[in-house]
């Protein structure tokens, strides 16, 4: 989906005026497009990677080009959690709490080797990968990843969000909201549905076998 604004050169003919001022699209597409271009990252940093994450916001890299420069300091206003750095044992519970305080829809980028898998730090106080307790949308390799790599991840995430279908109305066979109950996301995103199973996985498929 794309839109282009052109300044009127002359008074448009009837019919043409409508084509210039009206946009025909599906509501789902419009919502996905808006979400894609208005990510509000959470101002959250764990360690080294946070410095590169902050660098991505500064003029040389200018993350604002991707519509994702509005850094929010409270999780309640943010929808993108970038886990930038080592997930420490003592920090895991506060991190989980912060994630839960973010409102849906919310996305998670796991930035750097430590957040992906523990990286260099297979050592007692480090959780071996944030995906053991949070669902991750995009993994960024590197120690630390360059700001360009984080932007690459942002673009990947945008593509994913643009393709995401979250029905806005009531779906067939879905949950019927009662008068007081809050409406859950319906259907549950595949990422969230598979998270417990993925977190519990200890053996990955042999890459040679596929």
């Amino acid at each position, binding site marked *: 989906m794309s839109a282009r604004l052109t300044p009127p050169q002359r008074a448009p003919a009837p019919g043409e005026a409508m084509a210039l001022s009206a946009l025909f699209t599906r509501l789902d597409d419009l919502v996905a497009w808006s979400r894609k271009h208005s990510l509000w990252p959470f*101002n*959250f*940093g*764990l*360690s*080294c990677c*946070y*410095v*590169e994450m*902050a*660098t991505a916001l*500064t*003029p*040389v890299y200018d993350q604002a080009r991707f519509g994702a420069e509005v850094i929010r*300091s409270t999780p309640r206003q943010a929808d993108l959690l970038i886990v930038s750095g*080592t997930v*420490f*044992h*003592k*920090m*895991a*519970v*506060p991190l*989980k*709490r*912060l994630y839960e305080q973010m409102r849906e829809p919310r996305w998670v980028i796991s930035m750097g080797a430590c957040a992906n898998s*523990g990286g*260099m*730090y*297979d*050592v*007692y*106080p*480090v*959780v*071996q990968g944030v995906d*053991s*307790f949070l669902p991750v949308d995009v993994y960024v390799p590197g*120690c*630390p990843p*360059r700001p360009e790599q984080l932007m690459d991840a942002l673009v990947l995430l945008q593509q994913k969000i643009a393709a995401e279908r979250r029905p806005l109305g009531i779906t067939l066979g879905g949950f019927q909201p009662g008068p007081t109950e809050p409406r859950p996301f319906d259907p549950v995103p595949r990422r969230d549905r598979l998270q417990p199973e993925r*977190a519990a996985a*200890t053996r990955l498929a042999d890459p040679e076998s596929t």
Partner: protein
Amino acid sequence: MSLDAALPGDPVADLRARFGPRILAVQETAEDFPVLWVAPEAAVEVHRFLREEIAQPFALLADLWCIDEAGRTHRTGQPASGVTVCTHLVSLGRNADIRLKIACDAEAPAMPTLTGVYPNADWYEREAFDMFGVRFEGRTHHRRILMSPLWDGHPLRKSHYARATERPPFRMTDAHFDATEAAMQPDPEGWGHPLARDGHELMVLNFGPHHPSTHGVFRIVLGLDGEEVIWAEPDIGYHHRGAEKMAERQTWHGFIPYTDRIDYLGGVIHELPYLMAVERLCGITVPPRAQCIRVMLSEFYRILSHLLFYGTMAQDTGAMSPVFYMFTDRERIHRIMETITGGRMHPAFFRIGGVAMDLPTGWDRLVRDILEWLPPRMDEYERMVLKSELFRIRTQGIAAYDTATALEWGTTGPQLRATGCDWDLRKRRPYSGYEQYDFDVPIGLHGDCFDRTWVRAEEIRQSLRIIRQCLDNMPGGPVKADHPLTTPPPRGAMLQDIETLIHHFLAVSHGTVVPAGEATGQVEGHRGVTQYAIVSDGGTESHRTRIRTPSFAHLQMIPKVAPGLTVADLVVYIAAIDFVMSDVDR
């Protein structure tokens, strides 16, 4: 403070005369300061003598740590010990150090507390308890400091597992979540803080571990009367990454990348003290060109870190623009670092006996460009930040302390120099050839947040002076020492003679074997005195690597300085400390 009084006597002789047989032994080491074993019952008296009674006293407790002696074979001449508690004292007047060791039992290690002599022993003792289970008699509490209160065991004991993968994978169960949150609830009464002042109930504010102005995962619990801070209780350990345990597993060479990440804004700065200690044990002399490259890169990273401080300091007082300008300058320097080392933040460029490779063709042009670029920018920043009336109002007279207080709490680096104390290891104990450079040590006057900012801004200019001299006088010759333990050995020699090839093969397949012994490397880091104390047992990895980081000491001082500040001023004070949590928790 006068640092140039008459030369005092030998502290070892003074101690022997005073304490006789309670000085158990003088240990032979490769160090250039004495290492003494002290009877546990005399520990407090000996420390008090050195701090209060001796001429030109040892005012600074730089570090206190433990060594688990289990499995250590090379201990000739040392008294029997299960867990050894070490203290490292510094006398500024003498420009000399002394290290004391106290032997403890392996099963139930205990010794008297030193907090009555050195107040900053408090956090170090908590760390010793947390990591080794050492109990300090006379303390009011033994609370963990780095690990979660629910942690089981003392991680730096040799009996404790090292790898996370030796245990079942981490599971975030509801029970774990609830128990951890309950254990982390603020407990002012348990910490010994009042809940009211003059009949007003205090507001207890939990600040962190996630907060934009704590510069990392750091938590302080505040007792507030209105906006005024009555008490502050810092809680650290959210960034504990087990680097010291890592050193006992990685080869001597393989630990170098981890030193970069001890202070992730310091780049190569932490590599230097570690390698100075290893090279001292190996007896390696680093060739002049390698020394000069080391100095030049260290100064570049000092500028990088100070620029980030300068920008965030301005940001925390409410000025948004400077940090954006300064980050563009950081990018310019990062590009040079990348050309020379291949890395941005974590170059891992220094090697045992030199540096990884020679400077690339055209490095001088890049360095010359930045030397022309930065000084006018620094003038502009001075107009933007230091001369701004708003910045002055927010920082002058805020969180000020004097030299004696700074030393009492183990403060070093720019914060100590901001109090007017002329203490910079690059001048006082030149290493890596710093004695050949012409530079000044900026010192402040008031010891407040403004002076701390000014000192660092001025240090950027001095670092540029040093880099200019590196550029103009870069020596020729090899970038690695001609020594069998240089790792990896010079490639040309490795291809030519069998002796070097054997060492190369051993180092790569087995790991470099560093001679048994103890050695220390100290540098003036961008935040203060950074010290690596290593113990080799003649193996391919260290028996113990102790990393003394300046930020740990600086955070311990917060409860002393914070009372009386408003919350907004506390944020400025925290910014002016200029810490990163990796440098605190390691």
